[in-house]
């Protein structure tokens, strides 16, 4: 057959924006991140001889939001859910403590590791970057809050459709790795599913409009392994 095209060295970037009330930040972020990771996770690989492998099964579950009229589907993996909740919780706290106008962004980056020879450390090459810009609004009364529940729910429906559109483009995905390479492409530390290697970071915009970067290392131990 024809030779495989070289992987794109440009990282594709997608930006989503939402305006939410303070108490909706966590659920809105989780809905978006889980939807992305649903598409970017596979079952666990089991390598057999002769370079063949089989793939485990990914379960899914519905999640209802408490503060938004919205429901979404996530991968059935408590480890993954915990990791995302931890990241989103920190983002929410940072937003609240920053004293800013309530603007910030959280980023989900998918990357590949490229092994380098000693003494150089491995490179992390991003291939897809999702940025979710968040604008926190304050509401005056219960009626406004009710409208906000519905409106944010509708907005999140639009975001899910946007995410699915991007996923459907079938653009570059890392080549399926051999057993020795699998940790350069996938996060194999979870016991039930296997997302592509990812890292989450966030930035809070202070009232002057400058970014205060708080990069949070990815929550999985591979970061420190050389």
């Amino acid at each position, binding site marked *: 057959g024809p030779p495989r095209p070289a992987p794109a060295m440009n990282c594709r970037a997608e930006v989503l924006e939402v305006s939410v009330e303070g108490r909706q930040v966590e659920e809105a972020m989780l809905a978006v991140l889980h939807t992305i990771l649903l598409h970017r996770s596979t*079952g666990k690989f089991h390598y057999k001889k002769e370079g063949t492998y089989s793939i*485990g099964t990914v379960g*899914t579950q519905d999640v209802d939001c408490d503060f938004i009229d919205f429901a979404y*589907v996530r991968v059935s993996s408590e480890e993954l859910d915990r990791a995302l909740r931890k990241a989103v919780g920190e983002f929410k706290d940072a937003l609240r403590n920053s004293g800013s106008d309530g603007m910030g962004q959280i980023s989900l980056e998918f990357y590949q590791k490229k092994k380098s020879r000693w003494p150089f450390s491995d490179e992390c090459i991003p291939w897809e970057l999702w940025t979710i810009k968040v604008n926190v609004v304050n509401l005056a009364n219960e009626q406004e809050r009710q409208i906000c529940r*519905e409106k944010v729910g509708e907005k*999140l429906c639009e975001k899910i459709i946007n995410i699915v559109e991007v996923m459907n483009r079938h653009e570059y995905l890392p080549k399926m790795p*051999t057993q020795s390479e699998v940790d350069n492409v996938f996060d194999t530390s979870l016991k039930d599913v296997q997302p592509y290697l990812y890292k989450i970071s966030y930035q809070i915009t202070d009232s002057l409009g400058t970014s205060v970067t708080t990069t949070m290392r990815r929550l999985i131990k591979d970061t420190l392994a050389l």
Partner: protein
Amino acid sequence: AMDTDLSSQDRKDLDKFIKFFALKTVQVIVQARLGEKICTRSSSSPTGSDWFNLAIKDIPEVTHEAKKALAGQLPAVGRSMCVEISLKTSEGDSMELEIWCLEMNEKCDKEIKVSYTVYNRLSLLLKSLLAITRVTPAYRLSRKQGHEYVILYRIYFGEVQLSGLGEGFQTVRVGTVGTPVGTITLSCAYRINLAFMSTRQFERTPPIMGIIIDHFVDRPYPSSSPMHPCNYRAGEDSGAAYPSVEDSQEVCTTSFSTSPPSQCVFTVTKAHFQTPPPVVTDTLKVPVMGLAFSHQLSSSRLSYQPAALGVGSADMGYPVLFAGGLNAAHPHQVLVWYKDRDFCCPSSNTRSKPRRMRSLVTQAICLYCLCCVSLSLFSSPSEDTETVSNSSEGKCGSPHDVLETIFIRKVGAFVNKPINQVTMANLDIPFAMFAPKNVELEDNDPMVNPPDSPETESPLQGSLHSEGSSGSSTGNTHDDFVMIDFKPAFSKDDILPMDLGTFYREFQNPPQLSSLSIEIGAQSMAEDLDSLPEKLAVHEKNVKEFDAFVETLQ
């Protein structure tokens, strides 16, 4: 020159993938409209029956319907597989909500690897379908189904029919997968106009009685495939035995290779495959909609007509109404009264949100239903089937007849007189009974205006000294409901000379609280106001003491 012909093994694999993709697509869509949250587990070891590496359960009846519709064919150009989702109310009105279309077009991707890339992309497409099925308007409607309406599905194969979706329907594309024989496209067209526009746009079927039987009148489509409720549970009730998943499904064990593409190894093994015995499925289906509904069936012969008012449902916390309001600005606007909220808000897809519908009148309707609900909770199984069948054979033409039917029923131990003070305009629109009534309703609502207390002596006095009063009703001057017989369980008590039943009968019409009467209330208010200056003077005198007390608290 490249060999672009598909190898026969690839062709067979591709056909199998498309077939199972179609079946899984139907499962995902129908399960997303069951009204429940779905949860499946991840498994790190492949079980061999999870197509596309996703844990999607197979409801046997749904698979059966899908296979029947496909009749051995696969989606191809001009032959699409469609899953139609519609809503059907307890009165028999129905409305199409969505059409999910699995189509094939001619654009071929000859170079794509079937066993690998196509398979993984189909898996991705199913994930997208899981996500998208939760964001169309029908999802939220389906989560609240059960009392006022059910969600039905219908599978057909052939040409896509979108005319039942009303004006201005929207489409969302779930995704596409290119294959060597064409491009698979999955999309959804959904209704955005949830208002019931006119009587012509939906079918009138006789009122649903007892159990839901759906049969159809003049479906506009050439295909006559029957509708099915999304939350039908096969195997609970029905005699039809669908083969279990393990017996009937082809097993897919896949192996992937990371070697260069030309050496792709792909094995598919079939477990022993049993053709399900041909089951004659009829247009008559008996949906058993989970616990609340079956409870309803056992406690009262009538299940759905009272449910139009929210009566008879076991877990009725708040009434659920579907009110077709006569709003001047938007006639026939649909308002959906959510079960878990105590107010009524317009369905989120209507353009304007007339808050004024949240008025005294609708609250009165709410109270009225609560009244009916609480009274119905005391009903015991009815022996009186005659009235039931009479009422259920009522025509659905005049809304007045329908309403009258409901109130003439004998459910449990209550004997009703027709409540003729509830009148409504003779409108030939659905849900006419929920058209906003004039204030007349409120005046006649016993919950809002409790009837005057009888002039007799206190019922307490009367009952303590009466004997053998069970079986007769006392002092009921304003009866709409006369209790004939009430035998509560565990109600005997040695301490008091009366049982719970007697107690209930004696005290069911207590006199009005004196503080509720206007004169006495006004009087006591006037007294309070008069005494205020005096009280203030006393407090001022003791102000030092109060301040000292406050200090101790700080």
